[in-house]
């Protein structure tokens, strides 16, 4: 299978389309033309792109929870309750659907029906098919996005977009490395070209679908330069296929200055690389995901973690923030718990709405470091791409130039080792094959060395493990216990 970085020819696209639609019976119900007509009837306040654009212009941070249950009625009720308190709605897809195991999803639906409550960790959109999905979109009055984690999301995208969802999360790298074990990059990149091309088709018809590469990746000690590079590469791939509304994402790392610097540079670098690639007719917004790693089990402590993420989002002026819930450490949240997460976030985001992180030398330094790190990775990426960015993405992962910590994929290098410094910023302990300027790498090493001195131990893997557990045990930096 070869992948090339150019807008898929309509014919090639249509040729593969039939096969995609045939992978599950509900594919037959996908009606592109009708979908486009339906999208044209969606008022702006129910469509992702215009709502994000308006928030961006006003400099406010919108709130979006995660939520998805097995059955359609139950899912609609859930969203109707959530939309009372949030700005943007999700439809989080279950993990069987994410792996294209529609038969197992069907079983899950069946068992859920019998049990009277959801036994799936999300909404099996493909199994329910376009008409049921349309019901979901029709039953609420805010924009709804499909959120998942699917290496091959072609059928899911077909169903969801035809149904009227106005935003679609994911990308060929960000929905592969953290979510799959044995899916070659060639395959996921190609399948995501398909998704982006489909979005481009809608765009050609005047229907803007918002696309959001998945920022947090493994949610575990991901250095900003890695997630930024993935976001930018996926943005470039999407733009090429005709996508025009892009939300770049980032998972809160924990050091406030680093998090603010990350959101700022994400926006800045996104624009720079997109414009340098010749694009200028797109919209770019940002999203900060509240803490994506392990949560404390105590709900009050979880509430503090949620407020902390809201604080980072507000100070950084992310266009939206994805909220967690006090149930995070335990399991899929109840509606009540989900609402609590939104309320905590709303209060902190609103209280901080008029404040910003002060301009300061340490912030400048942090931004400068991220810029240099990303530029170095992107330079290596362009070199590997040798003119074809899709190939570049595949080669960059293969070469470990893009390397996601703790990703389960066999195709991820897994050589990069991150850990926190003395102020809790995520630094790089072992750079593996990720290219970095020597002085930048020395900066990381120095910072980690300072922590090592504080803790009177050598830098090493035990620090990484301690950092993985830290937040769930009530701290940011995993200090050795006395």
């Amino acid at each position, binding site marked *: 299978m070869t992948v090339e970085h150019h807008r898929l020819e309509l014919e090639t696209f249509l040729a593969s389309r039939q096969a995609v639609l045939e992978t599950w019976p509900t594919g037959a119900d996908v009606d592109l033309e009708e979908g486009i007509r339906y999208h044209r009837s969606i008022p702006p306040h129910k469509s992702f792109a215009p709502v994000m654009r308006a928030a961006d212009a006003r400099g406010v941070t919108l709130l979006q929870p995660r939520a998805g249950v097995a059955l359609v009625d139950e899912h609609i009720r859930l969203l109707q309750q959530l939309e009372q308190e949030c700005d943007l709605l999700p439809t989080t897809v279950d993990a069987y659907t994410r792996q294209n195991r529609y038969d197992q999803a069907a079983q899950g639906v069946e068992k859920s029906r019998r049990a009277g409550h959801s036994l799936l960790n999300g909404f099996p959109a493909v199994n329910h098919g376009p008409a049921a999905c349309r019901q979901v979109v029709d039953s609420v009055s805010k924009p709804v996005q499909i959120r998942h*984690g699917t290496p091959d999301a072609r059928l899911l995208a077909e169903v969801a977009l035809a149904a009227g969802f106005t935003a679609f999360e994911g990308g060929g790298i960000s929905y592969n490395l953290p979510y799959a074990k044995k899916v070659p990059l060639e395959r996921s990149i190609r399948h995501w070209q398909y998704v982006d091309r489909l979005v481009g088709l809608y765009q050609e018809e005047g229907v803007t679908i918002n696309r959001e590469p998945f920022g947090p990746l493994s949610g575990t000690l991901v250095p900003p330069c890695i997630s930024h590079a993935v976001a930018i590469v996926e943005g470039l791939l999407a733009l090429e296929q005709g996508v025009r509304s892009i939300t770049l994402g980032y998972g809160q790392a924990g050091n406030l200055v680093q998090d603010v610097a990350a959101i700022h540079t994400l926006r800045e670098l996104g624009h720079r690389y997109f414009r340098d690639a010749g694009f200028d007719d797109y919209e770019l917004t940002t999203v900060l995901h509240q803490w994506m790693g392990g949560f404390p089990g105590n709900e009050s402590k979880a509430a503090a973690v949620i407020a902390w993420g809201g604080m980072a989002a507000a100070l950084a002026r992310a266009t939206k923030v994805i909220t967690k819930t006090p149930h995070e450490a*335990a*399991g899929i949240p109840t509606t009540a718990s989900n609402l609590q997460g939104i309320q905590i976030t709303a209060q902190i985001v609103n209280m901080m709405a008029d404040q910003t992180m002060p301009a300061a030398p340490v912030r400048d330094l942090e931004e400068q470091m991220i810029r240099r790190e990303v530029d170095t990775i992107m330079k290596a990426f362009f070199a590997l791409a040798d003119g074809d960015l899709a190939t570049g993405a595949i080669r960059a992962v293969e070469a470990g130039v893009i390397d996601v910590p703790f990703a389960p994929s066999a195709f991820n290098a897994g050589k990069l080792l991150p850990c926190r410094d003395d102020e809790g910023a995520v630094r790089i302990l072992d750079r593996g094959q990720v290219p970095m300027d020597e002085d930048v790498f020395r900066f990381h090493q120095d910072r980690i060395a300072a922590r090592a001195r504080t803790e009177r131990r050598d830098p090493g893997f035990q620090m990484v493990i301690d950092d993985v557990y830290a937040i769930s045990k009530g701290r940011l930096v995993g200090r050795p216990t006395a």
Partner: protein
Amino acid sequence: MNHPVIVLGVIGADCHAVGNRILDMYFSSRSYHVVNLGVMVSQDEFIDAAIETGAQAILVSSLYGHGEIDCAGLRDRCIERGLDDIILYVGGNLVIGKQRFEEVAAKFRTMGFDRVFGPDADLAVVDRLLRQDIKRRQPCS
């Protein structure tokens, strides 16, 4: 039983890799021989590995909430395939939503698991129990 052999893995379509990585490191450092299948492991893959390596125990992880569905029948399948008294542990966020742990544990014990652990399992305790259980099953070794 100086180096008990254990099989680790995350069952079903579950991609949560971090806990698995840590269990691997932990048990390896406690001188177990760890056969780690990583994430997204099917019931048969667990059993194949256990047979192949002569493992004393299978430690199943499930974090993503489909544990109930994915684990159903594992004990029968083990017996079917000749692993009559292999030790089965399961741990993680085993069901959908925040449920009382006692009930969850009971459910999985009924499914044939010897021990059931939550996400806050203390690994030192797991280590101790596992050694005990292995000893008990092999009284004459």
